[in-house]
C-alpha cells in the first residue's frame, strides 16, 4: 500500500491520518501540503491563482497547520518527494504532482501524450504515478510508457457521487498482453454523512461540507481546464 501525499487538507483531524499511516508503516511520498505543513510555510502551495480559490485554500491550510502535531510535522519533513519501485521489470516512478514539481498540475485534458512519453524517457521509467489534481485518469503512450493519476481519498471527484477513489496496480505478467500492467480504479463508498458532521464540529467551511455531501466541487474550480470543468456542476 502506497500513499502519494497530501495527508491533511480539506477534511478534519489531520493527525489521525498521520497516525494510521505511520502505525502501519505505509510508504508515503511527500505532497505539497506535507511539505508546507512540515516546514510551517504560509500556505499550501497548491498553485491556485484565483482570489476566491485562494481564500478557501487558506482556511483549509490554517486549520490543518493548527491541528498537526510537531511530531507529525517533523516526520513530514523527512518524506521523500519521489520514490522508484520495480514491479516485475516495470520501472515505477511515484510522485505527488509530477516528477518535475510536486505541485505541477497534470490534467487529463491538458497533458499531451508526447509530453508524458518524453518525461518517462528522460527519467528512465515506464510508468509515472501521481495524484495532485485529485481526479483519476490514465494514459498509455505508443511505446508502452504511461501515467496514472491514482485519485484521492480525501475529496469526491466532482462527478455528483459521494464516493472517493483509489487505484489497484497489478503486473500483467510477461506475454499476457502487450501492456505490462493492469490498472483498476476503485470507487470507495464511506460514511460521508459522518464526515460532514465532523467537519461541521470543526467549523470547516460549509462549501467544503457541501462537496462531501453532493460530490460536486464548490471551490478551487478556476484551475480546472474546460473539459474537466464542464463535467462538474459549478
Amino acid at each position, binding site marked *: 500500500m502506497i500513499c502519494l501525499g497530501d495527508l491533511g487538507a480539506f477534511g478534519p483531524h489531520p493527525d489521525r491520518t498521520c497516525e494510521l499511516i505511520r502505525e502501519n508503516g505505509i510508504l508515503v511520498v511527500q505532497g505539497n501540503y506535507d511539505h508546507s505543513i512540515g516546514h510551517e510555510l504560509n500556505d499550501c502551495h497548491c498553485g*491556485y491563482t484565483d482570489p476566491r480559490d485562494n481564500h478557501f485554500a487558506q482556511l483549509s491550510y490554517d486549520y490543518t497547520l493548527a491541528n498537526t502535531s510537531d511530531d507529525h510535522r517533523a516526520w513530514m519533513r523527512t518524506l521523500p518527494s519521489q520514490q522508484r519501485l520495480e514491479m516485475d521489470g516495470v520501472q515505477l516512478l511515484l510522485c505527488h504532482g509530477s516528477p518535475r*514539481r510536486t505541485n505541477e*498540475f497534470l*490534467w487529463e485534458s*491538458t497533458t*499531451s501524450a508526447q509530453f508524458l512519453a518524453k518525461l518517462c524517457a528522460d527519467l528512465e521509467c515506464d510508468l509515472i504515478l501521481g495524484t495532485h489534481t485529485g481526479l483519476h485518469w490514465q494514459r498509455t503512450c505508443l511505446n508502452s510508457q504511461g501515467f496514472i493519476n491514482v485519485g484521492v481519498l480525501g475529496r469526491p471527484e466532482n462527478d455528483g457521487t459521494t464516493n472517493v477513489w483509489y487505484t489497484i496496480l497489478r503486473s500483467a505478467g510477461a506475454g499476457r498482453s502487450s501492456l505490462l500492467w493492469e490498472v483498476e480504479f476503485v470507487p470507495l463508498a464511506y460514511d460521508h454523512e459522518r464526515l460532514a458532521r465532523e467537519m461541521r464540529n470543526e467549523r470547516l467551511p460549509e462549501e467544503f461540507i457541501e462537496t462531501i455531501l453532493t460530490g460536486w466541487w464548490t471551490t478551487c474550480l*478556476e484551475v*480546472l481546464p*474546460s473539459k*474537466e470543468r464542464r463535467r462538474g456542476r459549478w
Partner: protein
Amino acid sequence: MPINPTAFETRLPIVVLGSLDELWFQVAGTRCNLTCTHCFISCSPHNDSFGFLTLADVERRLQESVEWGVKEFYFTGGEPFLNPDLIAILERTLDFGPATVLTNGTVLKPEWLERLRAAEQGSLYSLEFRVSIDGPTPELNDPIRGPRTFERAMCGVELLVQFGFLPIITMTRVWDESQDAEILGLFRDVLHQHGYDRPRLKVLPRLLLGAEANRTCGYSSAERITAEMLDGYDTTQLVCQHSRVVTDRGIAVCPILIDSPDAILGDTFHEASHGFAVTHGACATCYQYGAICTNPSHK
C-alpha cells in the same frame, strides 16, 4: 598587478530553455481587425511585419514538437480567426495535444464554432478560448479596444457559451491593482447577464511595449533584470524558460518580444533552444508577475 578589464564586464542575465512545454503559433502574424491602444506588438489591419501561418507550416511544427515533448499549444496574433486556415489548424492540433486560442472575440462565426466543438468532443484534449475584453463596461473597454468592441466581444462570448465552450475572459489591468476584486465582481455579474453562468476570468499586467510604450513612454533603463537578480530566482516563472513561438520569420523566444530583432532565435527548435538574455524592459514585468501568458490550469 594589472587588473583584468574583463573582470568588470557585466554578466548577462541568461535564461536557458528548461523544457519546451508550451509551443506558441503566431498564427495570424501581426494582422488584426482591431488597433488597441495597448497592443504590445502594435497589430492592425495593415501591419504585415509578421504574416499568417498555413496549415502546412503548423503541421510541420506539430510533427517536430513530438520529440520535444511539447505539452500544450497556444495560438495568437493579431487575431487568429482572420487566418482562413485556423479551423483546420485547430482541428489538427487537437490530435497532438491541448490547444488555446487568444482571440478578441469580435469575428467568430457559428459554423466555425460548430466544427471546433465537434473537434474538441472527438479529442482527448481541451480547446480553450481566451477572449480579450478590458473591463466589464464599454466605458472601460472601448477607449482602449475601439468603438463598440465591448458589445461585439460580448456577442462572441455569448456565441462561445451557446456552443458549450467556457471562454476565459482575459483583461489587461488598466486600473489600479487594488481595484481587482471590485472589477472582477462586476465583470462576473455582467457575464451572468449575458448567459455565461460560470465565468472564468484572468487579469494580465500591462506590458509597456509597442503601442502601449508610445502611450506611456515605455520602460526606463532602471527596470531591467540583472544577472544578480536571477541568482536563486526560480526561472520556471518566466515564459521563455519553457516556451517558444513559431512565426513566419522563424522561431521566437517568447510571445511578448517577437518585435525585437534579437527575439528570433533560428528556424529549427534546436537553434531556438539556446539561452536568451532577458535584458528587455518587458522581461522585468515577467520577473515581477511570473508566467503571465499561460492558462490557470497550467502551473
